[in-house]
């Protein structure tokens, strides 16, 4: 009997070591391949990582805090330093921050807003004002379908261990998968890899793109090159951050740029005004975000409501706004408008907040857009920030 026991231990030692070595070698190979591709979580969510890392510093700021939270439209359309200059000139004591992120839908933003809430609540700090962007086309089914491959990876980046544990308790299989992605795969899930290679192998069916005048493309390229050079000259100390603390997560302000830079910016954005270019952008947004049909994904709407509730925990005042849209190019169908109206009602009923619709404000003119949704730097962002100041300065 003793020899059988010792044989059992011997063979199972060999089996377990074999399996372990096999698994370690395979995982090592995966990390090596991912490393060769230069893919890591901080690369594809760099701005999110950096903005999260800035939170401990933000909560220690002495001034009253304002935070604008939203999509890439917020990222491009809100200038914190411009906001601060104008409101503080009225005797206020404000420091504002831009928490706008491209590529995050409300499902992911919900988790990010929880992390912001964690930091503020742990430090017993309040926001004087939270301005949250409700972006209709970020909450569509099409947008959600486009995010499927990245859900697990992003979730492991944005969710806390406690939240992962809650998922694991409810769905052990999924919980184990998420822990595996977080701790053994360094946030790079197999789905993310597959969708990356899948896109390469089977690119989305290309729409017929409208031709843009070659002279315009050349002019844009030339202006872009000059802007890069001017930037390097004017900001030699910039550290290449995605979310740069000295600029409070926003961009630079026109007052600190040279006259030549502002002139080149005008030339640069002028090249975006061609109607074929606008139409190409519009078609792209229709395909990737159902921007005119607005078939909403209920989960994303629920997530958005949760974002508002998260901010309500640590904010004196929460405002929900819809940023200016390029209504000259993006036109909702009557059904889409009805769906949007119903969704707005749903959010307002769930949060108790009236959504401020800035989509059609006259302060924003067509040439202030870089494409059909994002505001251009030094014109659109300034104009919209000025508008926000006008709306909220008295409440600060």
């Amino acid at each position, binding site marked *: 009997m003793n020899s059988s026991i010792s044989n059992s231990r011997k*063979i*199972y030692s*060999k*089996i377990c070591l074999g399996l372990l070595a096999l*698994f370690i070698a*395979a995982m090592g190979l995966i990390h090596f391949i991912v490393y060769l591709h230069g893919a890591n979580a901080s690369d594809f969510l760099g701005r999110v990582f950096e903005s999260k890392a800035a939170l401990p510093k933000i909560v220690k700021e002495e001034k009253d805090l304002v935070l604008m939270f939203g999509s890439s439209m917020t990222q491009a359309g809100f200038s914190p330093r411009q906001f601060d200059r104008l409101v503080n000139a009225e005797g206020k004591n404000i420091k504002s921050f831009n928490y706008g992120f491209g590529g995050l839908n409300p499902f992911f933003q919900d988790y990010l807003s929880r992390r912001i809430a964690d930091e503020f609540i742990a430090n017993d700090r309040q926001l004087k004002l939270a301005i949250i962007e409700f972006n209709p086309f970020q909450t569509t089914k099409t947008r959600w379908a486009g995010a499927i491959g990245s859900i697990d990876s992003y979730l492991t980046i944005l969710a806390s261990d406690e939240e992962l544990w809650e998922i694991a308790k409810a769905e052990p*299989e999924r919980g184990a*998968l998420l822990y595996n992605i977080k701790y053994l795969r360094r946030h790079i899930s197999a*789905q993310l*890899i597959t969708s990356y290679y899948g896109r390469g192998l089977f690119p989305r069916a290309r729409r017929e793109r409208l031709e843009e005048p070659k002279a315009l493309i050349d002019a844009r390229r030339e202006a872009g090159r000059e802007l890069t050079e001017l930037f390097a000259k004017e900001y030699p100390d910039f550290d290449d951050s995605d979310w740069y603390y000295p600029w409070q997560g926003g961009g630079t302000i026109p007052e600190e740029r040279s006259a030549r830079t502002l002139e080149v910016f005008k030339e640069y954005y002028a090249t975006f005004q061609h109607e074929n270019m606008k139409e190409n952008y519009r078609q792209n947004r229709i395909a990737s975000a159902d921007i005119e049909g607005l078939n909403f994904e209920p989960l994303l709407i629920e997530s958005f409501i949760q974002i508002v509730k998260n901010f309500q925990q640590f904010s004196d005042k929460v405002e929900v706004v819809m940023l200016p849209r390029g209504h000259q190019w993006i036109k909702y169908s009557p059904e889409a408008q009805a769906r949007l109206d119903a969704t707005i009602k749903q959010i307002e009923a769930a949060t108790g907040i009236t959504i401020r619709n800035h989509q059609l404000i006259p302060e924003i003119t067509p040439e202030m857009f870089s494409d059909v949704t994002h505001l251009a730097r030094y014109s659109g962002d300034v104009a919209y920030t000025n508008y926000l100041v006008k709306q909220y300065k008295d409440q600060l």
Partner: protein
Amino acid sequence: MIFNTPLFFLFFSIFILCYGFVFLRNTPRVYLIIVGSLIFYGAWNYKFIPLLVGSGIADYFIAQAIYSASTQAKKKLWVSISLCLNLGILGLFKYADFVLESVAEFLLVFGYQASLPTLSWVLPVGISFYTFQSLSYTIDVYRGEMKPRKGLVHFVAALSFFPQLVAGPILRAKQILPQMHAIALPTWESAKHGILLITVGLIKKTGADLLAIPAQKAFEAQESISTLEMWTGVVAFAGQIYGDFSGYTDMAIGIALLLGFKIPLNFRVPYFAISPVDFWRRWHISLSSWLRDYLYISLGGNRTGNRTRNVFITMLLGGLWHGAAWTFVAWGAFHGAIITATHYLGNLATFKSFNESTSKGIKLFKWALTFYLILIGWVFFRASSIDNAWHILVEMHTLSDVSMGNNALLIFALVTVWTLLTHIMDFYVIKGAEKLEKRPWLFWLLMVVGITLTLFIGEPSDEFIYFQF
């Protein structure tokens, strides 16, 4: 719990450490297998554990009663009780709603609007597999093909043995019970073969998940798609269901080998079959042999002159075993028809030389025809309804004027090559695994590459297809 998930990896790591280093004697290991298997099963839905254990306990005692019954009539009574019990449970959970809905639809044809109540019960995972396995024990004892073995825990452990619990292979009591009574130590060679099968199974499952995408595009298309894409989808489903199911059973056999158990092969490169009869000798062997031994032979088999009827009933019920839907009935009937046709043509003098020919050209023709027929069968199997199946068959056989999607040709090529590759891989595992296992460097290199591939590629997937059966 699914084999290709981190949760199973965690579960199995703990299990094998306990199994190999703590529970070293036979009986404690049997108890460990029961506990492990119930955790494995309970991770899906613990509420059905009593059903699994209860039906096992009942069949254990029924088998004893059959053996000790003094008359044939009493034996028959006991085996009938076992049949009623097992098929009753299966029928209640799996077919009750289907029957009620079908009756309502039938009455509607005659203008009667009957609102029959439905149960809407959740189908316990693996119920079709463990019910058949348990049933084989009482039938074997009734037929005198085996004596009931003492040891209730061994029987429950055999029935609930987690590697094959939820998607087979369907083991006979005479295959697994003796092994449970004297659990063998795996040799290093058998363990390596187990690791090989687990790796191959994982690769096949990974490929199957990717094939699900073009298959879904064809079977769930909201609008017309091109003829080529329709064929791509059907071939992709053939590859998907093979990779999914045979991949699962490969892993099951591999895991069992690591625990010292031998489970027979369930697939022998089925898409290389050269006739429908040949296909069923290679596809889901444990089910087809179960149906042959316990249903076809019980109906009279070849002997009564009712072979056609018996084949047809067997295939029809075999189809129904897969699911409570008319599409599965149609799939079974289709296979019944092509097997019957094969038998009929095989007996015709005109086809004698064709049947017996060893010419490569004729073999290739037979293979192509068989594969085509199998694909037609899969259309019924995968379609959401008979109408949907018909629509797909029409789309496959008429030239659509819808233009092809992006990379349609490349996708068709990849789908076909992958389906073929899995078969070639299986062919070499069956024929040449020993040679490979004797070259440690090559063996471990291939295993690392295989596991890396499966950890590298992922596609959100709804479990294994055969879990639902």
